[in-house]
């Protein structure tokens, strides 16, 4: 038996199949990891215990709940598309080119990761709001962005974009530029290299980045409330609906929260695979 002490799985020792031996993790680290996992799992289990299962069906199919869920799914999908369109070029610029002030640009672009969403909402409002930097221009064109579904999508994109950029940039850096160099010497123009080599090679990072961005957009609350408000059917996404219901009908809030958890879990499990697993 090779290094049984390190496998941390003494019970499986005798029945393990032949093959490379996995050098396991020390047991005390596994114990701490288990505590960490419980910290996340327990509240969700606890919430499940509070669900009023007898009325669960009617609670989650109320018109306002269905409207909110559909709005959430629609806007999160639109935000994800926007994140892809903007984020992939941003990741490429950060990973594959060099320009002055790149580190600063990178830090600023990733700012929404660490910024309280409500601050993001205020920033968006002062830019696209009626009296905002660009808002006045849009106003002249007869377009009002703040407190519309567009505002929801912009708020979600604002907070979700860094997730996609980070994920794609990391994949780009890991895959290196050697394939792209070979493609170029075979006569491929930079655009052909992008479509036929770079993009297919970063597809795993692209997918996991898009899933993270979708999940983040789905859960967005603070920036949305600040910049888009809470108008039923227009800007009231599921997190806003849950928060609102919590004041008046806690049972409905818990039921809807569980729906959001379920959607998030489905999305993460089906599409998000960390690099290294396949």
């Amino acid at each position, binding site marked *: 038996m090779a290094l049984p002490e390190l496998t941390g799985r003494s019970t499986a020792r005798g029945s393990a199949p032949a093959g490379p031996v996995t050098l396991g993790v020390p047991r005390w680290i596994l114990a701490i990891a288990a505590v960490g996992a419980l910290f996340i799992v327990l509240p969700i289990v606890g919430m499940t215990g509070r669900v009023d299962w007898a009325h669960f069906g009617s609670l989650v199919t109320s018109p306002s709940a269905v409207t909110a869920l559909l709005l959430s799914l629609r806007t999160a999908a639109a935000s994800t598309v926007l994140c892809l369109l903007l984020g992939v070029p941003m990741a490429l610029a950060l990973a594959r080119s060099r320009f002055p002030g790149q580190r600063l640009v990178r830090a600023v672009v990733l700012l929404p990761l660490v910024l309280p969403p409500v601050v993001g909402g205020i920033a968006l409002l002062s830019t696209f709001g009626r009296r905002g930097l660009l808002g006045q221009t849009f106003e002249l064109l007869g377009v009002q962005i703040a407190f519309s579904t567009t505002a929801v999508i912009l708020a979600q994109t604002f907070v979700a974009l860094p997730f996609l950029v980070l994920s794609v940039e990391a994949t780009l850096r890991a895959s290196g530029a050697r394939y792209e*160099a*070979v493609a*170029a*010497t*075979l*006569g491929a123009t930079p655009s052909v290299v992008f479509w*036929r080599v770079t993009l297919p*090679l970063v597809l795993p990072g692209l997918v996991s980045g898009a899933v993270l961005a979708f999940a983040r957009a789905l859960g967005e609350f603070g920036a949305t409330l600040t910049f888009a408000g809470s108008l039923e059917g227009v800007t009231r996404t599921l997190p806003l609906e849950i928060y609102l219901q919590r004041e008046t009908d806690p049972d409905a809030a818990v039921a809807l929260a569980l729906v959001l958890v379920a959607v998030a879990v489905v999305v993460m499990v089906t599409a998000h695979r960390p690099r290294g697993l396949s």
Partner: protein
Amino acid sequence: MTFELSAVIARRGLDVSFTVAQGETVALLGSNGAGKSTVVEISAGLLRPDAGRAALAGRVLYDLGEGRPAAWLPPHARGTALLAQEPLLFPHLSVRDNVAFGPRSAGASRARSREIADDWLASAEVADLADRRPTSLSGGQAQRVAVARALAADPRLLLLDEPMTALDVAAVPAQRRLLHRVLAGRTVILVTHDPLDALALASRVIVLERGRIVEEGPTRTVFAHPQTAFTRALTFGLDLSAGA
């Protein structure tokens, strides 16, 4: 398709100037760090020298230096296919589509570029692998496909950077035979560590040492009468008197 190159990179102590005649294979020899791969990268357009000039078949690839407007052709416009130590086949494309990549990039239709790919795969004796994924190939097979891919791009100058170093010993002779066959009549720069490669494939050798050319001439002449410690050590035990 004569290739002429001069390049200076001060930071790396590189200062070289040489010519490769149309249809000639020149081997670049030298110890690690002598600047062989640097010369290849400069030729391919992947590395920009401080100063110098290169031209291929009358087209200027780059012309850099003080007192003249800088000229620089990007890699894809040079017609210099590069085959490195590792085959670097695109993992998401089939073997056939890998080889078809060059013709496709040059504007050939999908069907036509696949025909070209199949011809080159046959020529590299790996036609049966056309539908396989690169990850399922052995090292020797992958490098043969990489040779086919480089040639399918119809390069005016073929750059081979130690194309057999990473191969299993048993796969080297077959690869050398393949290269011997397909390199005939082409303009080629071959970076190698192996005197056998130089003898079998190159009519002329250039020996680099710390970024400078220290020895140059027909392969057999240089090997029969080595002038530097490097070539003396490299050819130790090779007896070229009989066939020279």
